């Protein structure tokens, strides 16, 4: 929800980034305030996922210029784990599988690490079990998830639920969800979207990276940005997403070119 006076969480200015020596982001400006939902749309290769990963600090994405100030700190100078500890969360498009590492052990370590940094209570395995089960219930996740290896053999939908579960546990100030809707059937999409909505407060914000408008029916954006060729070429309200769905990306890019 847009509130004019709410504090700025993230301010990106002139962000340029390379992958394997090729410039993918060519100057991104975006401002996200507490309480807002932003959607970043655009076709494949427009730079959406690169923006998400560059902000989270993936080592393969080399930032060449620009700034990204998150709650007063330039995150581009921070290690990825420090960005996460500061409250920046990336929901992965393709969550990585880690064989042999139990989801429960992984989730608890992540949770306790972040709790410790924030000076909040860390939980022992039994306490954590109660805590995580309550969160899982909201995402309609089976308790068996805890015993399985991290994302190992998970279906696409299970992986995405697991991402939102991590978001629920870590309670980030800013969550960037990279194509969380892809690979979800309509029921799973509804559950995941409800989970995200439940986590939204006036103090945090969400940036949804997506191809399609369908997720935005459930999580209603305050701003919709359209990316093309490594730049944000158009910004509007939620209606822009509906219009895009109806008229296609050529409509925007053609308009820009014209």
């Amino acid at each position, binding site marked *: 929800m847009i509130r004019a006076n709410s504090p700025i969480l993230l301010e990106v200015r002139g962000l340029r980034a390379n992958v394997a020596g090729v410039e993918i982001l060519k100057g991104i400006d975006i401002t996200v305030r507490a309480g807002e939902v932003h959607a970043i749309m655009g076709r494949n290769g427009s730079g959406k996922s690169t923006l998400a990963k560059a902000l989270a*600090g993936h*080592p*393969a994405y080399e930032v060449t210029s620009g700034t990204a100030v998150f709650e007063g700190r330039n995150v581009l100078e921070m290690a*990825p784990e420090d960005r*996460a500890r500061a409250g920046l969360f990336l929901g992965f498009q393709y969550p990585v599988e880690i064989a*042999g590492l139990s989801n429960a052990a992984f989730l608890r370590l992540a949770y306790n*690490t972040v709790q410790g*940094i924030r000076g909040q209570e860390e939980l022992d395995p039994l306490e954590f079990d109660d805590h995580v089960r309550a969160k899982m219930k909201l995402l309609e996740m089976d308790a068996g998830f805890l015993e399985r290896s*991290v994302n190992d053999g998970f279906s696409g939908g299970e992986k995405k639920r697991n991402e939102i579960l*991590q978001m629920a546990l870590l309670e980030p100030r800013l969550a960037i969800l990279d194509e969380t809707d892809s690979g979800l059937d309509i029921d799973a999409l509804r559950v995941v979207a409800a989970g995200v909505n439940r986590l939204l407060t006036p103090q945090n914000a969400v940036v949804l990276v997506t191809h399609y408008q369908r997720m935005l029916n459930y999580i209603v954006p305050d701003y919709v940005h359209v990316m093309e060729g490594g730049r944000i070429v158009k910004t509007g309200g939620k209606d822009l997403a509906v219009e895009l769905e109806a008229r296609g990306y050529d409509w925007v890019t053609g308009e820009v070119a014209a």
Partner: protein
Amino acid sequence: MSSVLENLVNQPYRHGFVTEIEADKAPRGLNEDIIRLISAKKQEPEWMLEFRLKAYHHWLTMTEPRWPNVKYPKIDFQNIFYYSAPKPKKLASMDEVDPELLRTFEKLGVPMNERAALAGVAVDVIFDSVSVATTYKQRLAEVGIIFCSISEAVREHPDLVRRYLGTVVPPGDNFYAALNSAVFTDGSFCYIPKGVRCPMELSTYFRINTQESGQFERTLIVAEEGAHVSYLEGCTAPKFDSNQLHAAVVELVALDNAEIKYSTVQNWYAGDEKGVGGIYNFVTKRGLCKGVNSKISWTQVETGSAITWKYPSCVLLGDNSIGEFYSVALTNHHQQADTGTKMVHIGRNTRSRIISKGISAGQSNNSYRGLVKIGARAEGARNYSQCDSMLIGAKCSANTFPYIQVNNHSAKVEHEASTSKIGEDQLFYLASRGIGTEEAVSMIINGFCRDVFQQLPMEFAVEATKLLGLKLEGSVG
């Protein structure tokens, strides 16, 4: 590969230590006289000397194996001391122990009483009158278990030793086994009588204050009908030895319904990061499931040595017998490992299971080599093998050499293999949840090794987990 990972795995070996040793040495080189001297020094019976001499003459006709996937300069066998009675200089108190070593014990969680023994402190100084070793020995004697050095066993229990020594690994089995049979000077003997379930894990810890582990160790474990024993060899604490060549032989014999579980954690000096120095660990380990329904299970965590050449094996002679091999082999820097197992199915309905996890970092070379052989009369034999390799960095290598020979149509043999890489993506995923690189690497590695660590006795598993973390620890960033 990111420089973070490179730094992480390229840590110097910081925990080695040397105790000054005054030795009672025979001259360098090997001949009949040296063997007679060893036998005389050990006050051995005539048959033992004959065993040694026969092995020696066989050894002279043999050549070093060249098939392992390892490289090293030619060993001059006439330039080695084959007899050296070690007199470790005992330190008077824990205050004299290298503080770095104490920190390592701390990190590994080695119990207080064992720290003293490992650091070479006279145990009596620490514990008033009754040493830990004596206490254990008494408890074992109460149930009829014999647990002593092999030299003592040759003198005190000659009939038992003579009945089993060399029956699983014959003196002429291979080049290094023959050499060991001729010159072994140390090792353990363990005998579990019929129907006895050993009341504790037997560990070489309990002998360490009286015996330095030798260059040519010989271990023999016999479990009589229905007996059960779990034996732990080595320790996670790093070990330095001035002897470069180590050629041990371990023989296990399980009679009807007996079960032997043999766990090893090996952390010998691996050489420096340029590959200079380090132990050559050429070991022959074999278990014979002689009786029906017997079971032998090998679990090993190999992290040390410059070169490891080792194939703990099971000969499944008794019907319904079971052989197991669970292995984690980690190599870093210039370490080379060629390790695996042999499962030889002879009896009916014999079963074997192989779980091998190889981790290569630095410029190391890690090979799994395994043989599954199903004999003609092994009706209903089954084997399952799983060999997984993990690479850290771009300069190391991993190889798998599975050999399968099946001579019975009713056999079922399964082999699965995988190779994976700790990649930036896994580390980034964990980092994006607030988990730092070192902890992330440790979690990924321990996840990878979980199936093997589950087989280790509890305390050992905890130590092994920490050990792998230590071996890959480094300055991050």
